[in-house]
């Protein structure tokens, strides 16, 4: 048998049908659903008189629109948002799928809830009407975002029409330097490959620096595979993965666990398997990074200066000029001189317990800069509960942070958590697009530790200065 990549193995294990023209039907093990991209899909089913083929494999949770203020039990003010969440309540009930309503402590961002509840397991196919489904690849699951028509297709058929992607390997060798985190790895990779560098590929992340990461860190890395253009990101499962999964509510137990484990242990890329593209980074070369522009590829080490549009080529020259104008920055300016109005810590990239611990470590016993708006939004109700139990919440509050309830919040600002015009934010989320966090809002993507440092100093800050 010819050697296979991890992606090849998962693909082969889920190929339900292959037509003569090469069009494939991939069987889907887990379908995650949220309120923004699903109403039209359920409506489509209803109109065609169709049902959900595998409700027991379908899990829904509202996250994008929900308020994260402490008074949210009183309901959602914005009428359209409320209707969308109510539609999900109704659809979940009507079609009999698993559901975590806003009032449930397990509610949270769909990509945090799935792994937390043990729905995401190694070797699975996982889809969701959301591009950051790539997150689940951290478990060695083939996970990707789909559009609403595809959501409807999966609901009705439990399959997806797919063509196989090419294989890409991203290897991060060696050890990371102090102050460098999973977020810096994933941003550095995008800085290297560009936002279209992964288009047409599924990425497998490997190498010592990746192996050394916790599951939380691995989820941060895979989360942003989509920002690099890839259909999915994968990390082969290992002891770290099994330890995280074991004992989760929907993880297998007893004999089933043993059988699962035996199969999971076959999920790695064979020696000599073919990759169509290989990118290698040295772990020790990666520095704490920050984005300066309006594309996630606009990445630089925090010690650098804002680039000149002329440093680029082709269409990127105009894009960089536009970015600088939008961001209100001047070429040549030191990144560490950029003043920040707001800090947002949260999202499916960095809203897990380990991220909050990293923040607490930086801000413990210190106050955020006067006038700074700083918000911590845990990724799920359970992350929030754990942070309270560990005493992190007290540290945040004493430092001057707002301590919120779980949701997507200012990552995409569909709920009331938004930047105002010209407001500048250091954010742990994943997109710095124009308007992403609010109309004319300005976003710099950073790691949780760097966001915490910026909250203290009021400017983009090299975390290593505070260590």
């Amino acid at each position: 048998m010819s050697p296979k990549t991890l992606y090849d193995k998962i693909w082969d294990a889920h190929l339900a049908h292959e037509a003569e023209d090469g069009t494939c039907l991939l069987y889907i093990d887990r379908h995650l659903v949220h309120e923004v991209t699903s109403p039209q899909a359920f409506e489509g089913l209803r109109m065609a008189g169709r049902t959900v083929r595998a409700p027991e494999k379908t899990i829904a949770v509202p996250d994008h629109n929900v308020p994260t203020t402490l008074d949210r039990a009183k309901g959602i003010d914005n009428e359209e948002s409320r209707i969308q969440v109510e539609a999900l309540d109704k659809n979940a009930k009507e079609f009999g799928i698993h559901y975590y309503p806003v009032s449930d402590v397990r509610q949270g961002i769909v990509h945090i809830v799935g792994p937390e509840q043990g729905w995401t397991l190694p070797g699975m196919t996982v889809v969701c009407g959301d591009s950051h489904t790539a997150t689940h690849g951290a478990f060695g699951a083939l996970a990707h975002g789909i559009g609403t028509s595809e959501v409807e297709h999966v609901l009705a058929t439990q399959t997806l029409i797919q063509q196989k992607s090419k294989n890409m390997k991203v290897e991060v060798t060696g050890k990371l330097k102090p102050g460098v985190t999973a977020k810096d790895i994933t941003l550095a990779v995008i800085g290297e490959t560009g936002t279209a560098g992964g288009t047409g590929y599924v990425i497998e992340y490997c190498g010592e620096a990746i192996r050394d990461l916790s599951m939380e860190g691995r989820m941060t890395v895979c989360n942003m595979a989509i920002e690099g253009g890839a259909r999915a990101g994968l990390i082969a499962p290992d002891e770290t993965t099994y330890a995280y999964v074991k004992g989760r509510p929907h993880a297998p137990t007893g004999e089933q666990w043993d059988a699962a484990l035996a199969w999971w242990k076959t999920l790695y890329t064979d020696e000599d398997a073919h990759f169509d593209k290989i990118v290698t980074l040295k772990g020790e070369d990666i520095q704490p990074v920050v984005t300066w522009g309006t594309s996630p590829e606009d990445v630089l080490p925090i010690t650098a200066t804002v680039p000149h549009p002329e440093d680029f080529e082709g269409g990127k020259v105009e894009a960089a000029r536009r970015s600088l104008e939008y961001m209100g920055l001047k070429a040549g300016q030191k990144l560490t001189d950029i003043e920040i109005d707001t800090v947002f810590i949260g999202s499916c990239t960095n809203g897990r317990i380990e991220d909050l611990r990293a923040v607490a470590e930086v801000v413990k016993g210190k106050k955020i800069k006067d006038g700074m708006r700083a918000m911590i939004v845990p990724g799920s109700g359970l992350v929030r509960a754990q942070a309270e139990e560990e005493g992190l919440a007290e540290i945040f509050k004493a430092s001057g942070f707002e301590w919120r309830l779980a949701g997507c919040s200012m990552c995409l600002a569909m709920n009331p958590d938004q930047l105002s015009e010209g407001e500048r934010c250091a954010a742990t989320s994943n997109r710095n697009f124009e308007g992403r966090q609010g109309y004319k809002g300005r976003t710099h993507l950073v790691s949780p530790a760097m966001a915490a440092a910026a909250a203290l100093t009021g400017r983009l800050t090299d975390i290593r200065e505070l260590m």
Partner: protein
Amino acid sequence: MEKFEKLTGIAAPMPLVNIDTDMIIPKVFLKSIQRTGFGVNLFDEMRYNRDGSEIEDFVLNKPQYRNAEILVAGDNFGCGSSREHAPWAIKDFGIRCVISTSFADIFFNNCFKNGILPIVLPQEVVDVLMKDAEKGANARMEIDLEAQTITTSDGEVFSFDVDPFKKHCLMEGLDDIGLTLEKKASVDAFEARAAAERPWV
């Protein structure tokens, strides 16, 4: 789904690279539970001032491009989120074909589900088409999906590639859920086999 066979129309030039889904349809418009009505908000933040008035020099506000049916865009068009609201907005505005050097994966797939043809061409060809689009309303481009050709207003012809299955669905206006349900027996058999091999799933 509406069929796509041939299209002769005005092409609007948008040479910007990395046009993302937040630009195409900002999230404030994602709260609808319908599939239609997004066209007026296509490129909303680039197209309108805060008071709702039009930004004159935005391409789709220019008189010669208001009825554009084709978009010629910079690299990596449609990057960002999976929101199908992006192709819904494009279609609702009246655009049926987008041409670029590359597209983000999810956006690309979403187009085909909505009767929109995304065409990938090399930079040199996109440059020629961009120039042609810049000529304005009298320069009509012709897209022939059957023949897989684009003809510029000068009569220059370029051919493009398209996946045969996607082409077939687009030309016939097929609902692919219906097509997949025809393969139910294969899926049932697979499901039974997988349940035996991986009972923990």
